[in-house]
């Protein structure tokens, strides 16, 4: 079973050389520090930067340079700043090739819910609805079950949706699963996790091949 860093490490294997990537808040943010050696990936943050670098040193901190999580950041050589309309032109226009984000629920048809719990305070969707409606490749990084031990991989989402039929792959603390033809297809097991463990934790339709490889981290 993986911890959050482990999930981020597995997500990092989804990165492809020469691509632009948008990382959501939470586990996805950790991926920025895990780009494989020799691979060129450029990170976009939807508040208006391409070429986002690591957090600043104490004397580099600039209130005018933040990421979409409102954290202070730095800019790498070749970075560029732009306004919000242009930023979402990049996203909506599918120039950002990979989006990684967290979720409260994912359905076997690729629906995602991650912005609203009825009856609790609604903070808003931020850029999530634009992101999931746009990129060709949407990968979700999340725990397989919620704090009450209930599956977050469902036949259909119970929470208000963020997007419909958009999630291609889910990486959890238990497994890597692809979504197609209305089912979760088990691709990899986390170290020490059995197919039965994953089946037990997955409420949606799960299709497992006879042999499921273990993740290589």
């Amino acid at each position: 079973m993986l911890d959050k860093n482990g999930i981020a490490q597995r997500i990092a294997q989804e990165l492809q050389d020469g691509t632009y990537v948008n990382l959501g808040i939470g586990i996805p943010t950790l991926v920025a520090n895990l780009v494989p050696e020799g691979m060129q990936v450029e990170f976009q943050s939807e508040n208006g930067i391409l070429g986002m670098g690591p957090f600043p040193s104490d004397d580099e901190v600039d209130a005018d340079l933040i990421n979409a999580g409102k954290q202070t950041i730095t800019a790498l050589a070749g970075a560029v700043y732009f306004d919000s309309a242009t930023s979402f032109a990049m996203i909506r226009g599918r120039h950002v090739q990979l989006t990684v984000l967290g979720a409260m629920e994912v359905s076997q048809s690729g629906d995602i819910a991650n912005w609203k719990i009825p009856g609790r305070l609604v903070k808003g969707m931020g850029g999530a609805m634009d992101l999931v409606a746009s990129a060709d490749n949407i990968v979700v990084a999340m725990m397989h079950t919620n704090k009450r031990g209930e599956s977050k991989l469902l036949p259909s989402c119970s929470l208000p949706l963020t997007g419909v039929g958009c999630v291609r792959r889910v990486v959890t603390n238990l497994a890597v699963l692809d979504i197609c033809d209305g089912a979760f297809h088990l691709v990899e097991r986390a170290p020490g996790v059995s197919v039965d463990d994953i089946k037990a934790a997955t409420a949606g339709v799960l299709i497992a091949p006879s042999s499921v490889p273990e993740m290589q981290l």
Partner: protein
Amino acid sequence: MALDKTVSGVEAACQGIEDGMTVMLGGFGLCGIPECSIGELARLGVKDLTCISNNAGVDDFGLGLLLKARQIRKMIASYVGENDEFERQMLSGELDVDLIPQGSLAERCRAGGAGIPAFFTPAGFGTEIAEGKEVRQFDGKPHILESALTADFAIVKAWKGDTAGNLIFKATARNFNPAMAMAGGITIAEVEELVPAGALDPNQIHTPGIFVQRIFQGAHYERRIEQRTISTASSNK
């Protein structure tokens, strides 16, 4: 000769903002918000405002100041929170809240300034955001029709500006400011440094002065940071 948009200061800039008006404010979180003008709105005590802004500030800074004084009747934003008073007013029904996907918010402001009354976007299809909106397929993919946003006043914050109203923003403090500058009936720009027309390179201007009606040099920028994150030697390099 370039038109002169300068006003004497924040009081003159905010003249005419009245109870019940719609005001757009640039900024993302607390980054690039028009601090001086927000302070003036608090001082003026104008009420029943509809504010269009990506976020709603924090309890004691940014739009949080206007929320605390109950000056905002309706908030149109993409992400709120970080703000206990906001939560209280929303749950009690004192405050109307209209949440909009961030990209649609930015594009709707640009459209409002560009004379485009409506456009199709894939964002929000199949969600409650799409309720009551026209849906149409393009290239086999469903899109929803979103309409333009405009405001009585738009208030933006820039790094440098000239007397002709031309603006240059710094780093990610640009964010919503250029799109909102386009969409204001009257657009107010507060700048850290105001220079004479001709002092800025005409090639490097982010917001042309035609979108700005009033400009002044602000002062005492606090530039508060929400999440001060520092890299240590071992992390993040």
